[in-house]
């Protein structure tokens, strides 16, 4: 309400000054060209719907000219509006050119009138809104709100599976060994290399690679697989070092190795 009052006072004082000095150049008092146009329109003392846009355009252009003579720098949007209003004025004054495209002067004028009316309506709506009863000024909320207390209760859950796994874990603790430590069935490449380095001295002729598998690693398929892979990898390493030669008759055929003779 107070804001609205203040605003009303503002407009009244500006209008009064306008009347007194016929025109004042006080651009700071306006919020842009539309605001200024709305202010100027008040001097016509008619319903905004029946406003003479032509007259308004002339008032505005006069305002801008006066500002120029007073060497007051106008913001660009005021000048843009001036240019547009000059264009509108010419359209309104000249007979319509049927060959010309685009909206007529009347249409443009009607839109400007609509914009002014809408701005005015929003200002009045704002004033009415602020004049309403307001919370904390006219009506009040509970002074001592009782907060909702939150009761936090925890519900524990466990599934039958959890229960059984827990029991199994306890009862089999002795059997349990972490997987990473379980290297029983792994023959490493290092082991294979060590073994082959000691043996290739005797491999003068082509010998099947499988002959180099360590004892005790051939029966169990898992152990055999690991030993084969390690031995093969070791043979590749030795070939790279130039210590042995590799040979394979065809794809998937047995691989043979022999010592390389310098």
């Amino acid at each position, binding site marked *: 309400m107070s804001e609205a009052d203040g605003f009303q006072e503002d407009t009244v004082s500006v209008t009064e000054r306008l009347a007194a000095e016929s025109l004042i150049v006080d651009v700071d008092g306006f919020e842009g060209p*539309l605001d200024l146009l709305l202010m100027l329109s008040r001097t016509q003392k008619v319903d905004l719907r029946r406003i003479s846009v032509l007259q308004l355009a002339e008032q505005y252009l006069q305002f801008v000219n006066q500002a120029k003579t007073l060497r007051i720098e106008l913001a660009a949007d005021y000048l843009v509006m001036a240019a547009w209003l000059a264009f509108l004025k010419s359209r309104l004054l000249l007979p319509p050119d049927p060959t010309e495209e685009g909206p007529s002067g009347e249409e443009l004028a009607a839109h400007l009138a609509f914009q002014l009316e809408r701005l005015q309506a*929003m200002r009045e709506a704002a004033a009415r809104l602020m004049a309403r009863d307001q919370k904390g000024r006219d009506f009040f909320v509970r002074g001592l*709100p009782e907060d909702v207390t939150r009761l936090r209760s925890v519900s524990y859950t466990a599934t039958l599976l959890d229960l059984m796994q827990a029991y199994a874990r306890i009862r089999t603790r002795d059997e349990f060994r972490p997987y990473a430590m379980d290297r029983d069935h792994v023959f490493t490449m290092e082991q294979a290399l060590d073994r082959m380095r000691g043996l290739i001295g005797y491999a003068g002729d082509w010998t099947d690679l499988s002959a180099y598998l360590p004892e005790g690693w051939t029966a169990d398929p898992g152990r055999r697989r690991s030993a084969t892979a390690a031995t093969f990898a070791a043979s590749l390493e030795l070939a790279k070092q130039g210590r042995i030669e590799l040979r394979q008759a065809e794809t998937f055929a047995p691989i043979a190795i022999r010592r390389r003779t310098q």
Partner: protein
Amino acid sequence: MTETIAREKSLFEAPPMAEQERMVEAILFASADPVTVAELEARMPHGSDPAEALVHLRKRYEGRGVHVVRVGDAWAMRTAPDLGFLMQKETVETRKLSRAAIETLAIIAYHQPCTRAEIEEIRGVAVSRGTVDQLLELEWIRFGRRRMTPGRPVTYVVTQGFLDHFGLESARDLPGLKELRAAGLLDNRPMPGGALPADEEGEAPEGQSELFED
């Protein structure tokens, strides 16, 4: 066994309406902020009908020093506005809003959901960042859905806090809304030929009719 049944029954049978009214009264009374019907329902015993209890309660407080008021889809208790003069002690000094902020708020309220470009078109000037920030901070406006136009601009709508502050049941109850709409002043009328004053959107804000439709 019978005891269990009796207890279960009471768990699922709603209390009498008079009792429900007391419950709604207590909950609304205790809260400074509006409480939604859904929230009331969640807090009251199973099977309660807070909407009906509210009708009774509202009637009971008619003409009293405290009123039951509707705020959007929520309800609250507020002192009667005519007794505001007794409350100097409780009055909260609100920061004075600038004219730009008040106008921007009104434009958002009457045109929501409303983009910044639309606010600027109506006011004829750029909206300063501080203006919108201030309204957001007051929690009187919030972001609405983005407009499905090029650039997908954000929109602003008013909040429950706005309705609460200005004692409005809904945005439909904004003063003079009907007249403004009847006069076509809430239409988004683009500039003929699309010349001059910023009209980047060029598309009617369909949201508004949505929001205000009853």
